[in-house]
């Protein structure tokens, strides 16, 4: 989920060979539903079309649709560390069954 335009997502997806579903949230409607709009930012440098940016966040959701783990960054430039996310997935998801 990012504020990129669909064309930009398609471009980066191809460039980096990404497999995950990547969604465009230009108006931050989804971001707002999760309460993840970064209010400290009123402009998004490098992404001029977007009015704001989301707080960098990683969420794990179980089969019942319940949030079981959240990693929020206190810094807009920092992303979740892959090893931290993997450890959380092992802790909260029954990986063997999936």
């Amino acid at each position, binding site marked *: 989920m*990012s504020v*990129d335009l669909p064309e930009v997502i398609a471009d980066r997806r191809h460039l980096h060979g990404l497999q995950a579903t990547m969604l465009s949230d230009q108006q931050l409607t989804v971001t707002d539903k999760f309460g993840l709009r970064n209010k400290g930012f009123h402009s998004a440098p490098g992404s001029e079309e977007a009015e704001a940016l989301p707080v960098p966040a990683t969420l794990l959701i179980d089969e019942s649709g319940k949030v079981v783990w959240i990693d929020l960054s206190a810094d807009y430039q920092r992303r979740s560390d892959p090893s931290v996310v993997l450890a959380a997935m092992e802790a909260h998801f029954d990986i063997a069954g999936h």
Partner: protein
Amino acid sequence: MEGRGSGRAAVKPMKTGTKIALVAAVIAAVTARYWFYLAAEVSLPADRTGFVIAFLGAAALGVYALIKRTSWLGAIPAVFAIVVGAFLPFTVSISAQIVERDSVIEVGDAMPQFTSTDGQGQAFDSASLNGHLVLIKFFRAHW
């Protein structure tokens, strides 16, 4: 002052203004270097008063050095201190690395249902995630 006219003409004493200019340039350079180090480490402090004081102090020292008169070469560190010291507080005051938010989703909450658009322009409905383990990432943008 001291040393002038002492007969040791080979070594010209440094003008007071030049000395001040060098001190100002060192303060500006060290503070700037520390600032960019913290920025790279993404650990800029919320309170930047110290940085602003150091930069403005360096700029003020640079101006003072020029008033006290420097040698021709001594003007270079003075101008450097003024430029760095006057410009960087602006950057320091506006650069925001810390995010602000009020309400936020919490562990135990139900995932909000949403619709969106993927990279191919296809509509996406979060209902398609029901019954699955899901990892959702929000990130700033491609840059």
